[in-house]
C-alpha cells in the first residue's frame, strides 16, 4: 500500500502544466498581436499615401473650381484618416501643393505621409456638348445619330430617322451687330484695374450702365478685359438702375465670365446668362462684374475710354454691392463693352421617325418626332410625341458662349509664330509640322501621316488627300494641341485628327474662316472618322455622308446622311499644352513623396 505523507505534490505538477499552457498561449497571442500590428502598419502606409494623393486631387479640383483662390484645408476626414493641404504661392500662376495624410488623426498619427507637387495655370478648355452651334444652326441628314447633347443658338432641322441620345437646346437667335457698345482708341485707352486694392480703393465690384435702343431680350454682353495672374471666374449680373447706381434688389440675369477665355491681352469676352432678360427701350440698366476676391497677384483689368465716347451710361465701382446701403463710386471714363439683343424665335424640326432621347428646350418644336423625356417650348406641332411632361410657355434657353475665345486663338497664333515662319505653300507629304506659322496653303497627298507639334498656324487653306492623318506629337502626353487655319479646309475621305495617344489628348482644328460673310464652307471633312475637335466659330462645317466625329463647335453645321457623333466625356476638361492661361494642371517633374 502506498502512502503519501506529504501533501501538495500534485499542485506543483498542476502549476507546471498550467505554466506551460500559459506560456504557449501567451506566445501565440503576442505573436499574433505583432503580426496584426505589422499588417496594420503596412496597410495604413498604403492608405495614408492614397489619402495624401486624394488631398492633391481635391486641391487641384478646388483650385480650378475657384479660379485659384483655394487656400488649402486642415484635417479633412476621409476614409480611415484625415488629410491637410497647404497651398504655397510661388507667383506667375505657380502654386505648390503639400498634401499630408494622417491615420487615424493629425494629433497622434500612427502613420503620416506628405506628397508635394507643383501646379500651374495650363490651358483648360471645356467642351461640354458634342455639338455646339452658333446662329447658323444645324442641318442633319437622314439617319444621322448624335450620341451626346446638342446646344444650338440657331434652328435645328433634321431628315428622317435622325436620333439624338442627349438633350437638345435651341436658344433664341440674337443680333449679329451690337445694340450698345463702348470702346477706346489710342491714347484715350486706359487700364481700369479691379479685383484688387488700388490706392486704398478695394475695387471688388465694377459696373457700367447702358440704355438699349429698342425693347427686347438681352442675348449676351461682351466685356473688353484682360487679366493678371489667375483670378477666379467673376459673376456678371444685369441689374436695374436705382437712382444712378445698380439696384441690388433688381437683378435681372446672372452669368459667369469664364476666366479661361481671357488672356493677358485685351479682348472682348462674351458672357451669357441664366435667362435672357427683357429690357425696355431707353431705360438705364447696369452690367455689374463681381470679382470673387481682392488679390494683388490675380486680378482683372477692364479697358477704359478716357474720352467718354459712350453717352448713354457711366461706370462705377463698389466695395460691396450687397451692403445694406451700397456705396457706388464714380469712375472717370467709359468701360469697354457691347450688348446684343435677341429673342428671335428658333425651332427644332426633325422629320418622320426621328427620336430625341433626352429633354428638348426650344421655342418651337415641329416636324414628326418622339421626345423620350420632357419638352419645354412655346409652340409644339401636332405630330410630336412627348413621352415625358410637356412644359408649354417655357422661356427660350439663353444662348451659350463658345468654349474658345478670339483671345485664345490669338495667343495660339502668337505662339505658333514664335516657333518660326515658313513663307510659301507647302505641298507633298510633310512628316512633321510646327510649332510654326505657315504663310500660304498646306496641300497634302493621299495617306500622309503628319506629326504636329502644336500650335500650327496656316494662313491659307488646308487641303488633304484621302487617308491623311494629323497626329499630335507623343511628347504632348495627356495635353492637347491645336492647328489654326484662316482659310478653308477640305479633308479627303478617311482623314483624321489624332491626339498624342495618351488618354485626354486631342488635336483640335480651329478655323477662323467666316462662312457667314464669304459663303463657302470653312471645313469639309469628307467621309471621315474624326477623333479630334473641330472648331469654327464663324464658319460652316460640312460632314459627308457616313462621317463620324466626337466634337464639333461651329457657327453652322451640316451633317450628311448617317453621320455619327460619339461624344467623349474627356472633352469636358481638355487641357492644351500651349495657349492662354486657364485651369491649373500638374507640372511634370515636381511630384515628390516626403
Amino acid at each position, binding site marked *: *500500500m*502506498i*502512502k*503519501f505523507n506529504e501533501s501538495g505534490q500534485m499542485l506543483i505538477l498542476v502549476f507546471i*502544466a498550467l505554466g*506551460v*499552457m500559459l506560456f*504557449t498561449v501567451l*506566445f*501565440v497571442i503576442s*505573436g*499574433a498581436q505583432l*503580426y496584426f500590428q*505589422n*499588417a496594420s502598419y*503596412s*496597410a495604413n*502606409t*498604403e492608405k495614408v*499615401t492614397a489619402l495624401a494623393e486624394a488631398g492633391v486631387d481635391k486641391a487641384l479640383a478646388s483650385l480650378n473650381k475657384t479660379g485659384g483662390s483655394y487656400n488649402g484645408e486642415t484635417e479633412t476626414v476621409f476614409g480611415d484618416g484625415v488629410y491637410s493641404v497647404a497651398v504655397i504661392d510661388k507667383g506667375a500662376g505657380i502654386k505648390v501643393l503639400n498634401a499630408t495624410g494622417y491615420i487615424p488623426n493629425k494629433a497622434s498619427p500612427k502613420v503620416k505621409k506628405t506628397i508635394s*507637387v507643383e501646379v500651374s495655370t495650363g490651358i483648360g478648355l471645356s467642351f461640354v456638348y458634342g455639338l455646339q452651334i452658333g446662329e447658323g444652326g444645324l442641318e442633319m441628314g437622314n439617319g444621322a445619330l448624335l450620341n451626346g447633347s446638342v446646344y444650338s443658338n440657331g434652328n435645328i432641322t433634321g431628315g428622317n430617322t435622325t436620333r439624338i441620345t442627349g438633350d437638345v437646346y435651341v436658344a433664341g437667335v440674337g443680333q449679329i451687330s451690337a445694340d450698345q457698345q463702348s470702346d477706346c482708341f489710342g491714347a484715350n485707352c486706359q487700364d481700369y484695374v479691379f479685383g484688387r486694392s488700388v490706392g486704398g480703393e478695394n475695387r471688388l465690384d465694377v459696373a457700367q450702365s447702358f440704355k438699349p435702343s429698342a425693347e427686347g431680350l438681352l442675348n449676351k454682353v461682351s466685356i473688353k478685359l484682360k487679366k493678371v495672374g489667375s483670378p477666379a471666374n467673376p459673376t456678371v449680373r444685369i441689374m436695374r438702375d436705382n437712382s444712378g447706381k445698380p439696384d441690388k434688389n433688381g437683378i435681372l440675369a446672372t452669368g459667369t465670365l469664364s476666366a479661361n477665355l481671357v488672356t493677358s491681352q485685351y479682348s472682348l469676352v462674351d458672357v451669357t446668362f441664366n435667362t435672357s432678360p427683357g429690357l425696355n427701350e431707353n431705360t438705364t440698366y447696369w452690367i455689374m462684374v463681381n470679382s470673387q476676391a481682392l488679390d494683388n497677384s490675380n486680378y482683372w483689368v477692364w479697358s477704359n475710354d478716357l474720352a467718354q465716347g459712350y453717352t448713354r451710361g457711366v461706370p462705377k465701382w463698389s466695395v460691396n454691392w450687397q451692403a445694406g446701403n451700397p456705396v457706388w463710386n464714380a469712375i472717370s471714363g467709359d468701360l469697354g463693352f457691347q450688348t446684343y439683343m435677341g429673342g428671335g424665335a428658333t425651332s427644332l424640326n426633325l422629320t418622320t421617325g426621328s427620336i430625341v432621347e433626352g429633354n428638348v428646350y426650344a421655342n418651337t418644336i415641329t416636324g414628326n418626332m418622339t421626345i423620350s423625356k420632357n419638352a419645354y417650348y412655346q409652340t409644339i406641332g401636332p405630330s410630336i410625341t412627348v413621352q415625358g411632361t410637356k412644359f408649354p410657355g417655357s422661356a427660350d434657353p439663353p444662348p451659350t458662349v463658345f468654349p474658345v475665345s478670339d483671345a485664345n486663338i490669338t495667343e495660339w497664333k502668337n505662339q505658333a509664330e514664335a516657333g518660326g515662319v515658313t513663307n510659301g505653300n507647302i505641298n507633298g507629304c510633310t512628316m512633321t509640322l510646327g510649332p510654326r506659322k505657315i504663310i500660304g496653303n498646306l496641300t497634302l497627298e493621299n495617306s500622309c501621316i503628319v506629326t504636329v507639334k502644336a500650335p500650327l498656324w496656316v494662313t491659307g487653306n488646308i487641303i488633304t488627300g484621302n487617308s491623311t492623318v494629323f497626329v499630335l506629337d507623343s511628347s504632348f*502626353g*495627356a495635353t492637347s494641341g491645336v492647328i489654326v487655319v484662316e482659310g478653308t479646309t477640305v479633308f479627303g475621305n478617311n482623314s483624321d485628327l489624332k491626339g498624342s*495617344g*495618351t*488618354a485626354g489628348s486631342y488635336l483640335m482644328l480651329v478655323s477662323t474662316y467666316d462662312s457667314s460673310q464669304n459663303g463657302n464652307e470653312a471645313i469639309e471633312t469628307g467621309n471621315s472618322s474624326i477623333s479630334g475637335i473641330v472648331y469654327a466659330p464663324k464658319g460652316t462645317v460640312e460632314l459627308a455622308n457616313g462621317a463620324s466625329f466626337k466634337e464639333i463647335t461651329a457657327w453652322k453645321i451640316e451633317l450628311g446622311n448617317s453621320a455619327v457623333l460619339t461624344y467623349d466625356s474627356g472633352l469636358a476638361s481638355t487641357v492644351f499644352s500651349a495657349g492662354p492661361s486657364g485651369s491649373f494642371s*500638374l507640372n*511634370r*517633374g*515636381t*511630384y*515628390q*513623396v*516626403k
Partner: protein
Amino acid sequence: MRERGLTLIEVLVAMGIAVVAGSLLVVIMVNSAGFFTNQSSKMQQGLNINDSLLQVRNSIKQASAVAVSYTSGPTTYTTGSNLLVLKVLSIDSLNNLIDDTYDYFVFFRDQNLLRFKTFPNPASSRKSSDRIFSTIVDSINFQYFNSAIPPVEVAPASATNVRVSLSLRQKNGLKYEIKTGTSEANLRND
C-alpha cells in the same frame, strides 16, 4: 490518527488519465504552434511583398525616367527584366527638387535578396544607401509600358509605366511556399 493512502489501482488510473490528458494537451499545443508558425510564415511573406512593392512603386512615381543603365565604380547596373534603374530628381537640403540634377535608384535581385541602392548626385542632399527589402526573393520581373491605350510594352527608356512582379520563397514546415505579388505605377515626373 492514521490516514488511509491511495491504492495502486487509484494511482494507476490517475496516472493513466494524466497521461491521456497530457498527451492531448501536447498534441493540441504542437498543432496550434505549427498552425501559428505556418500562418505567420504566410503573413510574413505577404507583408514582405506588400512592403517591397510599396517601396518600388513610390520610387517609380517619383522617377523622371527609367535609366538604361548606371555605372558606379566597376559595376554597371543595366535596366532589364530583373533590374530597374530609376532616374530621380535630386533634392537640396530643404528637400526641394533640383532641376536637371538626378539621383539614381537601383532595384535588383542579389541571390535571394531584394536590394535597393541609392546613388545620389554630388549636389544632392539625398543619402547614399544600400538596403535590403527582402531576404527570401525567388524572382523579380520588371515590365515597361508606354501611355497608349491599351498600354504597349516598350523599351525601358521609353517607358512611362513600370510593372513589377515579385515572388518570395519561404520554407514552411517541410516544404517551400512561393507567393507572388504584382504592382505598377506611372512615372509622375517624366
